[in-house]
């Protein structure tokens, strides 16, 4: 594997130019019709379907040698699949990489939107497993395509309303559906619903790639994105009712870490870059360590 990926063996950013053109055209159509899933002829990548092949193809079609790439999985730069994808692009595109959200021009992500606000000039690429928000209500593509065409989203509202009837709340905690520019219902990928508000009016370009399902969709900057809800049950972006035990942040999405066999647990930021930069700035949580000490 290592040897065959040496420079020259494959094209810049792995994909051949015709494939990139095909993906680029799909991305532009996605931008033109925000929230609509554009079919594209997804290629077999040297990593398994379901492991980010859609995101990787979108990133490969966007990358230039001047980019700085950040790859996160579950908000973290050091999870194994993030490491693997980052390494793939270092090898095939010799691109600069970073863990700092603000320094990245392209961020490929799985399951999170970074905590630090994004800016113009950045592109956020989401890995998407099931792009069709209606898929779990109607398994047939031929049917869901018709439902999008006719703006027939009643089924989704019925599902959300049944949740309320049973649980008193909408019981969708992640991949919470949104409506884009008042037209298409869209799956924001399995981000926690805590992240949903960040989808709207975002200065960065947001691109979504689903390799196995052969779909690309997009949100241009500053697009109107509304999480589906009801007047009497408004959407609520929730998280664990704790502060980060390392950096003390009260505004970030938290991972729960089990620390012993006796029910001990701690909460830490899922966004590792956000947590680290707060710690470096001197913030400290319940179990945090002062910076000088940590450096020793």
């Amino acid at each position, binding site marked *: 594997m290592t040897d065959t990926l040496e420079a020259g063996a494959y*094209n*810049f*950013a792995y994909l051949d*130019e*015709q494939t*990139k*053109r*095909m993906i*680029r*055209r*799909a*991305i*532009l*159509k*996605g*931008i*033109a*019709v*925000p929230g*609509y899933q*554009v*079919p594209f002829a997804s290629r077999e990548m040297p990593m398994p379907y379901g492991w980010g092949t859609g995101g990787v193809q979108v990133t490969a*079609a*966007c*990358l*230039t*040698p*001047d980019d700085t790439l950040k790859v996160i999985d579950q908000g973290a730069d050091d999870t194994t699949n993030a490491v693997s994808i980052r390494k793939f692009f270092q090898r095939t595109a010799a691109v600069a990489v970073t863990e700092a959200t603000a320094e990245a021009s392209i961020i490929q992500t799985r399951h999170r939107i970074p905590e630090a606000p994004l800016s*113009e000039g950045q*592109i956020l690429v989401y890995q998407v497993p099931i792009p069709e928000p209606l898929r779990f209500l109607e398994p047939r593509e031929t049917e869901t*395509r*018709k439902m*999008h*065409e006719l703006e027939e989203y009643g089924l989704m509202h019925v599902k959300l309303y049944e949740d309320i009837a049973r649980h008193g709340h909408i019981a969708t905690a992640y991949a919470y559906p949104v409506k884009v*520019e008042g*037209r*298409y219902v869209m799956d924001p990928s399995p981000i926690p619903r805590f992240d949903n508000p960040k989808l709207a*009016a975002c*200065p960065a*370009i947001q691109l979504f790639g689903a390799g196995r399902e052969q779909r690309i969709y997009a*949100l*241009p*900057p*500053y*697009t*109107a994105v509304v999480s589906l809800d009801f007047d009497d049950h408004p959407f609520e972006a929730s998280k664990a009712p704790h502060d980060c035990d390392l950096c003390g942040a009260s505004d970030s999405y938290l991972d729960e870490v089990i620390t012993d066999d006796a029910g001990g647990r701690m909460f830490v930021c899922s966004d590792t870059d956000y947590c680290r930069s707060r710690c470096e700035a001197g913030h400290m949580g319940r179990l945090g360590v002062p910076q000088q000490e940590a450096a020793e």
Partner: protein
Amino acid sequence: MTLDALLGGFTETPLQSAQAFRAALEALSRPGQIETVTGATPPAPLSVAAGVLVLTLCDPTTPVHLAGAHDCAALRDWITFHTGAPLVGATAAQFAIGTWAALAPVNRFAIGQPDYPDRSATLIVEMEHLAAHGARLSGPGIKTTAQLSLPETAAFAANRALFPLGFDTFLTSGACLAGLPRSTRVETL
């Protein structure tokens, strides 16, 4: 085919087309924003920017329509040699290139199907000038409002009314390009 047809393409395709695509992506994602591109030196009357778009987006799978003065032997040969795109009439085109006057009436172009709105044409409109003033734009990609020197507003407003169907547009002048997706609302100031 003359020797000229063989010249004026990208010299480092992977890198130049990547940079050009990013410019096109930014332009279409932020209507009103004008991008500058380089890398193509197509025969007249095609502008550098339109030439870059053609090299970046067109290939044997994308039928291209050349309108008016752009439908000349030099350009036909250049596009055929560098992209392999079939040259077709307006209704079959995935990309259509010409001045606004030559492209009219624009309701000839594909606007997609209700179940596949992506199957629509992209117009590359060659302009004398391109500037960030003129018609007022709002919609996806625009924080509040933006302005762009559109050739007219009525046709674009009519196109917006078809949303999610409609054609998408790049405006080109010299090395400059701007984007106007079908989602943009257009008003005369």
